[in-house]
Structure formats: structure tokens, C-alpha cells
């Protein structure tokens, strides 16, 4: 590449004759073959972000934003509306490979997250244009591939993306469930790759867990929705994966993201308006729910003895990991890390370990416990067995509370706690 071209491909260096340069780039992109064109677009974006410091991310004008939108639509998403041919499945795979390798070779976190968000961030404009679907679809495949190919950099960027979209649970959950579907249901043989995820990208694992817990709440909160037990309970392989993740690294539950990454690449459109309840900021409470509710919820008549045993084991592992996490949190509190910068508008107030568990959460959990207990008693199955399960559940609940209180990760008044205790059956 000669100097002139070098200049032209670096958008940050554009000072004059911007329309000319835009058309030059558009032309040269249209001349290049797939997948080179897609790669060139990503390289161009990386170059663009590279020219800025993380503290002062680029802020392109309207004209430039529109140009970038066009190019991304055409060469990354190949949306048919923009005149490009739709890709065949093999070409789609090629595109994924190109994106993965581009991100893998980019060393700067800031650039990666910026470019990733530029490519895949969902804006209100996207919703209006109906482009969310294709973005999420590409994202699903991309993440799925990254998991198997150990594209840690891309996974990291994805984790940031998930965090940044956590007020849009529908979108995040779509990606989450698609990954789970791919590895657990479609190709169970590839499950080890997913199990290994926590080692490569703990951030991603943490975000995935958050999503998974919402996907499988065990007790359905919304009464209107009728979920089958299949989806409301976490499937056994999933339980296995999650247990293995937090057993290897209990601090997964406490992961937070560097704030610089959370703002990078926000170029266009207005900020996405929050929708319904946002995803929880961390997986800890959800994991507690699993550990406590699972003994009550499992439909034991259906699952085999082996699976039953396994599930019981996994739940106690979860329980252990949660307690460890509380302990870790209290340790972290003793050696506080550098203060995190909070951006206005971001919901980061719960990062404080004292707010890991709140009284309201406990109240909800205890209500669900009572509901499940009543349900299983109503079925009049094996009474002794049910009592045993109830006992197990309550023990776990009590132990966790104890640790949480001891590590001061619980923010609740005594009265609040007392009212919760009174409702639950007594433990031995």
C-alpha cells in the first residue's frame, strides 16, 4: 500500500474531500472479492479506532456515520435490501472466519470493543429498520464459532456487548439461548469447548450465566406465560457446564467490566431505550435460586436415578461455589481495587458487594420456595422424599444467608429477614 492509499483507508486522517474519499473506498470495496471486502471493512474500522485514545473515542459526524452504516450493511451483513447478494451458507461461514480472525489479531481491547459495538450494537434506528434480526443472527453464529475456536478476544468483546445491552433482555437472551442450543442440543460432542469457556473468557462466561439464569427461572414469575418444565428448568448438561465454570473460578459470579470498554464505539443513533426489567447485573442471585429451588422443582418421577443423583451433586457444587463467592467478595472488600468510573446512565450501583443480595430478592426467593413446596405436597408423591428435599433446600437457603450476613454481602434489616424466616418451614 502506498502512502496515499494508507491515508485514504484511515478515516481518522480524513481532513478534506471527504465525499471523494468515501466514493473511492466504496469503489475499491466493490471491486474486491468476497471475503476480502468484508475483511477490508473491518481493517478500516480498526484503523479508525486505532487512531484514538480510549479516553476520547471517535465521534464521527452524520455523514461519516451514514457511510460507515452503508459499508457495514453491505459488506458485513450483506443485507439484501442494500443491493448485495445474500451469502450462501459456506460464504457465511467464511465471513465468520474472517471476522473472528480479524478480532483475534487485534491487540487493543479498546479497538476491538469499539469495532464490535460499531458492527453489532443495536440502536433504536436498527429496531426501526428491522435490522436487529440479522445482527443477532450473525452474532449468534459468530459467538458460537468463537467458543469452539477459542477466539478469546472476540468473546471478550461479546461479553461487553451483552453487558451493554443488558437492559434489552430479549436480544441478549436470544444470543444466549442460541449458544446453548448449539453446544448442548445440536452438537453435544462439542460441549467441552463450552465447558472450557470460563478459562478463555471469564467475562463471557459470567454474562452467559446471567442470561441462562433468566432463561431458566425454575419458577415462572409471570403468571400469564406458561412455560414447559423443559425450558423452565435448566437441563442437566447446562447445569454441568455452569457448575464446572464456577467451580474452576468462583469469582466468575463477581466479574465486572472495565468501564472504558463499555462506552467504546458508540457512534450512531440514539441510545437504545430500556425495555422491561433489565437483566440482573450478575449471576450470583440466580445461581442461589438454582441451588435452593432445584431440589424442590425437579420432577423426579421423570428423570432417571442416575440423572437425579448427578443433578443433586451439581446443585451442591453450585451451593459451594456461591458460598465461596461470598467469601471472595468479602476479601475483595478488604483490598479494594481502584475505584471504578461510573458513567451516567449506566446501572453499576450494584457492583458494591454489600448489595450482592438484597432483602427483596430473598423475599421473592422464599415465596417461590413456598410455592414449590406446596405444589409438590399437593401431588402427594413420596412424602418422606419430599420432606427430605424441602429440608435440603431450606438448609441451603439458611447456610447461604448465614455466609452472606457474615461476609456482609447482604443488605437487609433484621425485621425483613425475620418476616422471611417466619414463612418458611422450620429446619432441623
Amino acid at each position, binding site marked *: 500500500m502506498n502512502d496515499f492509499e494508507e491515508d485514504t483507508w484511515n478515516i481518522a486522517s480524513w481532513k478534506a474531500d471527504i465525499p471523494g474519499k468515501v466514493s473511492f473506498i466504496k469503489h475499491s470495496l466493490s471491486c474486491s472479492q468476497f471475503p476480502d471486502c468484508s475483511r477490508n471493512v473491518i481493517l478500516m474500522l480498526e484503523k479508525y479506532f486505532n487512531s484514538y485514545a480510549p479516553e476520547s473515542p471517535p465521534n464521527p459526524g452524520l455523514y461519516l456515520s451514514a457511510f460507515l452504516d452503508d459499508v457495514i450493511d453491505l459488506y458485513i451483513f450483506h443485507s439484501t435490501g442494500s443491493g448485495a447478494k445474500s451469502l*450462501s*451458507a*459456506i460464504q*457465511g*461461514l*467464511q465471513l*465468520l*472466519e474472517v471476522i473472528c480472525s480479524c478480532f483475534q489479531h487485534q491487540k487493543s481491547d479498546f479497538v476491538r470493543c469499539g469495532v464490535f459495538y460499531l458492527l453489532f450494537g443495536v440502536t433504536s434506528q436498527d429496531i426501526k429498520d428491522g435490522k436487529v434480526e440479522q445482527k443477532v443472527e450473525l452474532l*449468534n*453464529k*459468530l459467538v*458460537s*464459532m468463537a467458543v*469452539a*475456536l*477459542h477466539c478469546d478476544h472476540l468473546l471478550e468483546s461479546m461479553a461487553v456487548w451483552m453487558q451493554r445491552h443488558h437492559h434489552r433482555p430479549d436480544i441478549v437472551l436470544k444470543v444466549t439461548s442460541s449458544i446453548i*442450543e*448449539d*453446544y448442548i*442440543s*445440536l*452438537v*453435544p*460432542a*462439542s460441549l*467441552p*469447548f463450552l465447558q*472450557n469457556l470460563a*478459562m478463555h473468557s471469564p467475562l463471557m462466561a459470567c454474562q452467559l450465566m446471567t442470561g441462562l439464569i433468566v432463561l431458566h427461572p425454575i419458577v415462572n414469575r409471570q403468571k400469564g406465560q406458561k412455560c414447559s418444565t423443559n425450558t423452565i428448568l435448566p437441563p442437566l448438561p447446562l447445569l454441568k457446564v455452569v457448575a464446572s465454570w464456577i467451580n474452576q473460578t468462583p469469582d466468575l459470579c463477581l466479574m465486572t467490566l472495565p468501564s472504558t470498554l463499555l462506552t467504546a464505539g458508540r457512534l450512531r443513533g440514539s441510545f437504545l431505550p430500556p425495555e422491561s426489567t433489565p437483566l440482573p447485573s450478575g449471576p450470583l442471585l440466580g445461581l442461589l435460586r438454582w441451588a435452593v429451588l432445584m431440589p424442590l422443582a425437579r420432577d423426579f418421577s421423570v428423570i432417571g436415578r442416575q440423572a437425579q443423583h448427578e443433578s443433586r451433586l451439581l446443585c451442591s457444587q453450585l451451593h459451594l461455589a456461591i458460598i465461596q463467592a461470598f467469601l471472595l467478595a468479602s476479601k475483595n472488600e478488604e483490598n479494594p481495587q481502584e475505584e471504578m468510573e461510573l458513567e451516567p446512565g449506566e446501572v453499576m450501583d450494584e457492583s458494591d458487594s454489600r448489595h450482592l443480595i438484597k432483602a427483596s430478592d430473598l423475599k421473592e426467593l422464599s415465596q417461590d420456595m413456598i410455592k414449590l413446596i406446596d405444589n409438590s405436597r399437593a401431588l402427594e408423591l413420596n412424602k418422606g422424599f419430599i420432606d427430605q428435599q424441602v429440608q435440603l433446600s431450606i438448609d441451603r437457603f439458611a447456610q447461604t444467608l448465614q455466609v452472606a450476613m457474615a461476609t456482609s454481602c447482604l443488605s437487609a434489616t433484621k425485621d425483613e429477614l425475620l418476616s422471611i424466616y417466619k414463612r418458611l418451614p422450620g429446619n432441623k
Partner: protein
Amino acid sequence: MADNLSNESKNLRTQLNLFLSGTDESGQILSNVEKTQSAIVLLHSLPCARHAVLEQLCDVFHEAVQKYVVELERQALSGTTGHPADLDPELLSALQNVSEVVCRFVDNNPTAWAPLICEWSLNLLGQVVTRNNGRRGVSITMSLSEGIHKWMLFPAVRRLMDIAIHCSAKLVGRGQADVCVQCLLQIAMKSSPHLDWVVAHIGSHFHEVFIPKLLSTALKEYTASQSLGGISGEASVMTPTMVQVLAYLSLQHSQEIKSNLLTIFHESIPNTAGTDIKPAEQLATLPFLLHVATLSPSLLRGTIKEFLDALIPEVLIQLLEQSKKRGETRKSLISSVVDVIKNTGEGALDIFQFLLKNLHESNSKACVDVHPTQVEVKKSFVLTMELLLHRLQEAALQRHSLLYKSSSFSPHTESKQIESEFLKVMSCHSQYLCKTILATDSNKAPSIFRLLVIIGVHSGQTSAAGILSQVLINCKNANHLEVFVQLYKELRLYYTHLLDDVVKTCLSCSKSPAASSLAQLVGLLSNFHRSNLSSSLQKYRIVFANLLSHPNLEVSLKSLKLVLSCHKPLPDKVSTLMKLCNNSVGHCKVHQAMRKEHVHLFGGILSEVKVSLLERNSNPHISSHLPLTPSSVFFSGIVGDIKKRNRSKTPDRTELQSWLQTSQLLTDMVFTLCCISDHEDSDNTSLTLHHKYVDSLALLLMEIVCPDVIPITFDWPDDDSLKFTMESTLMSSLLATVMANWEVHRDVSVDQSSLHFKVTCFITDLMTKASWLPPPISRVGAVFSLLQPKEIYTLLSTMWKVLKEFPPPSSAMTPEATRQRWQQGAAFKTQKEVVKAIFVNNIGKLGHHYARVFEESW
């Protein structure tokens, strides 16, 4: 473990690069088989690559099919036939490998993989088939089963079918038949009609689920297309495919299809409990079913009865309301109903009866409180019937004009249009219809009548004649006859020799000698007689004439009447005439002779004949050979005996009366026969007797009455031959007999009352009337009673001599010619002198007769 995994991940990356670049590390391009291998690796460990992998796997199937087709073409060129040799074994094993892997995935996780693989395999099948259609060995025009046969020879296609069937079996087994059917139908629609055989073949593996699903999906699609397109302009794609597939499936599961069709119909009727069909679909069901029936009449075969049973009045009203809701003009649906009916063979009669019944339902009831909708239902039926008859008529007319008018008949071009299964089947029921039309009240008759006409026109002359004869044979009263006449008038317009056939058919119907058919025949003949068709029937007199000799008197009488009712002269063939006479007279004679109770009537016939002939003889232009008639024979021989025997008996009045009628008939007939003119256009009123016919008649009578008489030569026999050939001719033999009698008579006076005397008088009288004898001898018959037997003998022998010299002329002569004839010969003078001498001898007794006998005038 982590190391292991990262190694694996690295391997995976390598495989991915291999797969994507299509080249190995050294830059060598990979073959399809090798690509397939790397694709399978990816399939096992890279979930997001599955679509790409499946896409890649298509190549190997395409290659296999391609190679097979090339092989087929090569074989065709080299002239060898049969199964192409095995393909590349590597390719085959790759195919096998793919199908095993894919099936394993489906087995392990049917929920996730079965729909995916099912769709993939079907799509690929669609591609393969569509791409290679029209190549050698496979063509688009193949029928479903041919398609299956041809394509299943392809190893790749067979594998794909196996995979698809495996997937669908899994899906159905898990209660996800919906997914499978949906998938099948989508594919079918996408590459219709190439893939209909696939759909049919796979569908047949789980037909219990597939057929209802297919129907309901098609119905849904049809409903949608109807509501979108408004009119049926936006034709649904699904329905033709569905019909194709159902037609294939109906080979094995016709009962199931039928019951499903019926179910759909029942569900479409509101108020049926337990239906969860949407109202829009309910409304669209009837048009949908009609559409299906239009596309493939055979699908509905066997369900007509059930459908008709279901159409009780309440349902009909509901259907009417539905049609109002559809907002369509009533006609549009009726038109398709009629189309369907027109093409329906089986159950045609049921349909027709159903229409008839409903056409007049409310009429038959007392119209006190007929529901207004019921009236409307009835109107619809009227409309339907009208339109049906109209369409059928069109078809029949087209067919008729094609078969009977155009010489260049090409069966391929229009034969489809003019064929109507309904008519074909109905024509088998024409006998029933004929009976019905005569049995029913006037209400239903017009429709049946029209249908009969249409059937007649449609199925050809023989059939039309059959219908007519059926009606005719079953005619019982004047109304019935009217029906027949009307029917004939209609059908006559289409066929030239229709009546020919009708008569033939009728007669052949009643040929068997059973009593019932005899009665039938009698009825038939009288029907013919009364049907005012005499003018048209004239040509068939011969046919009826044959019936004159029927052993049953009534039959022959009826036929005789019939013959006589033909005003036109009989054909001028002597043979015909002969036959006719032979039949009639011969029959009468034989018949009467054989039945003793009628014997006494025989005299009657003689007298009648005589009277009749006398009348004719009064015509001055006629000279006939009356003496040759058998009457004289009777008189002298048989009859005399009969008379003697029966004289004491008083004849039964009624018998006598009937006999009088009969004889009158006979006389009339003979008269008519003899009046035939040679020229067609001659005036009939003159009633000219024709010589040759009279001759023939005489001969005939002779033959009948004196079977042993030698044929007449019309020459008077020689004097010498008298003793030997007394009976040689009728008259001469008679005369001779009488002469011999008188010769030996030794009485002084004559007994006037004796038979002998009477016969003598009769004979002379006859000869006189025939102008065989010249005056005065011709007039002496009047004075025989005053003479002595000897003198009578002298006179008779003088007559003989005259006759010897002047044999009776062979043809009629004018009086002038006759006179001239007499004046030439010697016998003429002799006879005059003989007569004069006798008068002189008996002048006391005969004096006052002299002037009369010897009058100069002729």
C-alpha cells in the same frame, strides 16, 4: 485436558481453513469426497458451521447424480441398456458416510436435527430432480409412479430419500408430524411439480397423519388465496400438488382419503360439535372440495353416496347461508358443482335422483308454511338442474356433431371436452329413466325427458333407438304415447334412420315367445298404431307385414291394422305384395281351419271377399280373373262340407262380430293392395285396381286353397285333356265337375235348392261377369231353373266349347274388343243356335225370357 482441548481447537481451525479454501496445506484442490470428509469433521464439532456443511454436502450428491446421468447418456449412445455400472466407489462410500452421519445426528437429537435434515434432504432432492429433469432417462412428463421408479435408480436420490424418510419417521414418532408435513409441503410447492412424487412417497409412510394434514394445509392455503385474490384468479399452488399427491396415495389409501374428505366437509357445516375450524375455512371448504373434485374427479369416487346422504335439508339451508356469507353470486358455485357432476361417473344416478327429489321437494308438500330459505334452496336446485342439463346438452351436441357430421374426426383434440362421465354412466341407466319417466308425475318428467334426449344424442343412434323402444314398449296410455312421440320428435332431428332402429329394437325385444313378451308385442303394435306416426312408419310396413304371420291372432291383427293405417300405397314389388298376401290370407285360412270354433265363420270371409270384389268389378275399366279365385273351390268342395256340418249351430254373436271385423280388415287390405298404382304420384282416390296385382292375388289364392293345383298358364285346356286334367285349372276344373254332374243327371226337372244347381248358377254367373262368354249364352244362367238337366248339360258343354275357342283373355279388355273377338269365331254362331234351339223347344216356359237373353246389346 485444557491442552487437549486447545489442540483440538487448533485442529478445528485447520479443518475450517481446509473446508473454506477448498485446498489442502500444499495448495492441492480437494475433491468433493475429501471436502465431504472435512465437512463431516466440522459438523461434529463446530455447531455454527452446520448450514455451511450441509451446503457442502450437497455437492457430493450432485456429483453422484451427474455421473449417473452421464453414464445413462453414454449407455444410450452406445446402445447398451440396463443398470449403469457402479459409480465411483469412493463417491458411493462418501454418500453412505454422509447419510450415516446425518442419520446419527437425527437419532441422537431428533428435536433439533430432524427438521433441519428433513428440510435439507428434501431441498436437495428438489434441486437434484429439478436440475436433471429433462435429461436423458428422466423426463418431466413422467407420472408419479414412473418418477419414483426412475429416480430411485439413482444411488444419490435413493440415499436422500432414505434420509428424508428416516427424518420424517422420527418427527412423526415424536408427534411432530406438523413440522414434517409443513416441510414436505413447502418443498413440494417450491419445486412443484417435480417433487410431487417425493411428497407422495414420503407421505405414504405416515399416511394417517399426512393425509388429514395435507388436506387441512391445502384448505388453509386455498382459503388464504381465496380471501386474497377475491375471485379464484389467484389460484392456489398447493391444491394441484395436493391433488396429485392424493391421487397417488389413493392407490393404496383411498378409503382414508375419502373419509378425510368427508370429515372436512362435515366440519365445514356449522353447528357440528367439536370443530375448531376457523369460520373462513368453513366457508372456503365447499369451494375447495369442488375445486379438488374438478381437478380430479376420481378422488371423490365412492364418496358420492355419503355426500348425498349428508345433504339433508337442514344442511342444505346451512350451505345456502354459507354461500350468502361468501358473498358470491350463487351461480359461480353452481357452475362448478355442475362441472363436477358432469365429470362424475360413479353415483351419477344417485346424483340425478337427488337433484330430482330436491327439485320438487316443496312442491309435493302442501305449501302452507314453506320456509323462505327452503324456497331459495329449491331455486338453487332448479338452477343447478338447468345448468347441468345445459352443459350436458352442449357436450352431447359437440360429441354428436363430431361423430356424425365431421368426417375428419380427430379423437385427441377435443375428446376430453366432449366426454362426460356422467352421461356415460347415465346412459347405462336409460332403461331405468325410461321407466321412471312413464311412472312419475308430470313434475319430474321434463327433466328426465331432457336428460333422455341428451343421452340419446350423446350415446349414438343405437342407444337412442333403445331409449325410444323402451319407452314405447312400456307405454300404457295416451300420455305415455305422447311422451314417446315427443321423444321421437326430438331425437329424429339427430339421426336419419332412427325409426328403423327403433322398430328393429322393439321387435327384437319382443321376439322371445314368452307370454309377457307376446303381450308386450301386442301393446307395442297398438302403440305404434296409436302413436300417429303412421306416416313415418310407412317404410316399415314390410317389417310389420312379417308379423302378420305371427301365431298369435291378436298380434297379427294389430299388425294388420298397422299396415292398413299406412295411407301410402305399398311398395310396388310383387314379391312384397305376395309375401303380404301370403302372410295375411294364408294365416287367416290356416288359422281358421285349425281352430274349429271359428270354422263356421269361414263362410263369412268368402262372402265378404265376394262383396268386395263385386264392388270392384263394378268399375268398368276392370277386367279381372275372378273365376280363378279360390272362392269357387271352396264353394264346391270344402266349404260345402263345412256348411253342412255347422249349419245347425248358431254362431256366437261376439265371435261373429269379431270375425266380421277381421274379415273386413282383410278385405280392406286386399283392396288396398290391389289399388296400388305403379306411379307414386298417381291419384289414390281413383282406387284403380291393377291387373297384375289382381293376377298375383288370384294365383296366390289358388296356391293357398288348392295347394296341389298345377300352376296356371292362363290358357284354357284342350278338350281332350278334360278327362285327364280335370283339375288342371281352377275354373275349368270347376266347370268340368259341374258338366260331369249334369251329364249323368237323369231327373226330369231341376231341384233349385240343390247345391249342385246353385254351384252351376254361380259358375255361369261368374263367367258371365268376367265377360268370358258372349251373349246369348252368357245370359242363359238366368233360365237354368226352367230347363231340364240334359239341356243344362248341353248349354254347359257349349260354354266349354266357346271357352275352348276363346280362352279367357289374359288381360282386361274393352267391351268393344271383346265383341269383336266373339264375332270372328265359329263357336260364336254355334252357341247362338244351341241356345235358340233350346228356347224353341221350351218356348212355352222360356218365351218371355227370349227378348232378354237374345238382346243385341252387349
